[in-house]
């Protein structure tokens, strides 16, 4: 599962995109893990995430208590700023829940956040990009939106439809991002970043 890797975008745009997840190691520390994942989500919720979700519920920032109550295997949260990430990391270090935590974002920025929280990276996953028949891909601006769902459940045509609606004045960029968000089954989609990207596409 590489659902929070391969997010595309400029350095400026990715500077507002940090995904955290907590996961148990099956057969090692998965006994009694559910309350720990729920506590992780509660901790993150204190720091104003832009999305919160789980495989069971998808992303539902409007109904976080529902997500927390039903979280079972992996908890996800999305932040749009480093301060919130640092604060959450500090709280998680203090809480010592004992499950693995993964942070996705610009390496340089994440490393600075880890340092400020008194943590160090352990293992990295590097994206070497897209290989093969790349001529089949949609345009880069579409990919910046769709790759925020690592399972590719957000259709490029739905993104185009949302851009059309923004241009027509029938949806705001924020409303369009809210249409896209629930298609992502894990809650790792960043609606705040998406709204900015959609607005930029609609202005062309």
């Amino acid at each position, binding site marked *: *599962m*590489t*659902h*929070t*890797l*391969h*997010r595309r975008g400029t350095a400026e745009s*990715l500077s507002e*995109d940090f995904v955290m*997840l907590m*996961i148990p*190691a*099956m057969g*090692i*520390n998965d006994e009694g893990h559910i309350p720990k994942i729920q506590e992780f989500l509660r901790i993150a919720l204190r720091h104003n995430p832009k999305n919160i979700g789980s*495989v069971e519920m998808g992303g539902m920032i409007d109904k976080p208590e529902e997500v927390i109550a039903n979280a079972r295997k992996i908890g996800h949260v999305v932040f749009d700023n480093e301060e919130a990430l640092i604060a959450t990391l500090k709280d*998680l*270090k203090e809480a*010592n829940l*004992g*499950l*693995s*935590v*993964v*942070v*996705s974002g*610009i390496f340089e920025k*994440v*490393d600075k956040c*880890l340092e400020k929280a008194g*943590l*160090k*990276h*352990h*293992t*990295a*996953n*590097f*994206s*070497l*990009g*897209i*290989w*093969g*028949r*790349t001529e*089949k*891909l*949609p345009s880069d601006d579409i990919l910046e939106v*769709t790759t925020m769902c690592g*399972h*590719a*459940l*957000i*259709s490029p*045509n*739905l993104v*185009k439809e949302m851009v059309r609606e923004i241009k027509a004045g029938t949806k705001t960029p924020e409303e369009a991002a809210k249409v896209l968000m629930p*298609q992502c*089954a894990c809650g790792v989609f960043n609606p705040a970043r998406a709204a900015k990207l959609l607005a930029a596409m609609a202005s062309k």
Partner: protein
Amino acid sequence: MRIDPEVCIACEACIPYCPMEAISIKDDVAVIDQDECVDCAVCLKSGVCPVDCIIFEPAPWPRSLRTTFSDPRTEHKETRIAGRGTEEMKTNDVTGRFKRGWVGLGCEFGRPGIGTRFRDVDKVAQVLAKHGVIFEAKNPVTILMEDTKTGKLKEEVLNEKVLSAIIECMFPIEKFKEVISALREVAKEIDTVMSVECINRADPDGSYPLRKMLDEMGIPYYINGKQNVGLGRPLAEV
């Protein structure tokens, strides 16, 4: 996935939701191209149909693979993991799966948003096998192999199409140049795209030997990625 022609009102609302562009209007009803559909259920679960005419019926083997690989809300019976892959580096602080001196390689076929037939996965897996990689035993693609020494997938799955499927394997870092060169060559022969990734355990000083190797070889990589931050317990000796 299929659409009940007796109920469909041809409103076209579902069409933009399909990641595979498999829905079209024919004879005044929406129809799903069964060969292109990956049974991801995005059309159904979006709730966009105003008359509830989108239907999912579990398919028999091997078509059943379409759902388990394409809908992350379903779970592979063999691995107890939802989605396409495994815990990989997410739990490496606890599992110690990727030790110092080793590289994890992931090739995610069909991503982003193109989809893949297993025949392309098979082609690449056989090349990687020739270079002595160790396929991840809990990965659902590995489970589809006839023999992990050859990487060959079961014949009956080759034409099945899924939203994405991941080969996960590992090898000593000394083999990185050889493996990545072979991957570059076979990537020219596939009929889809693949997102490629590499996993590496940090050295005690915090540096990643693989990053140095990528820089030396001139292999581009994204400025962003994933990092396990070492909060899992008990910590593995890696």
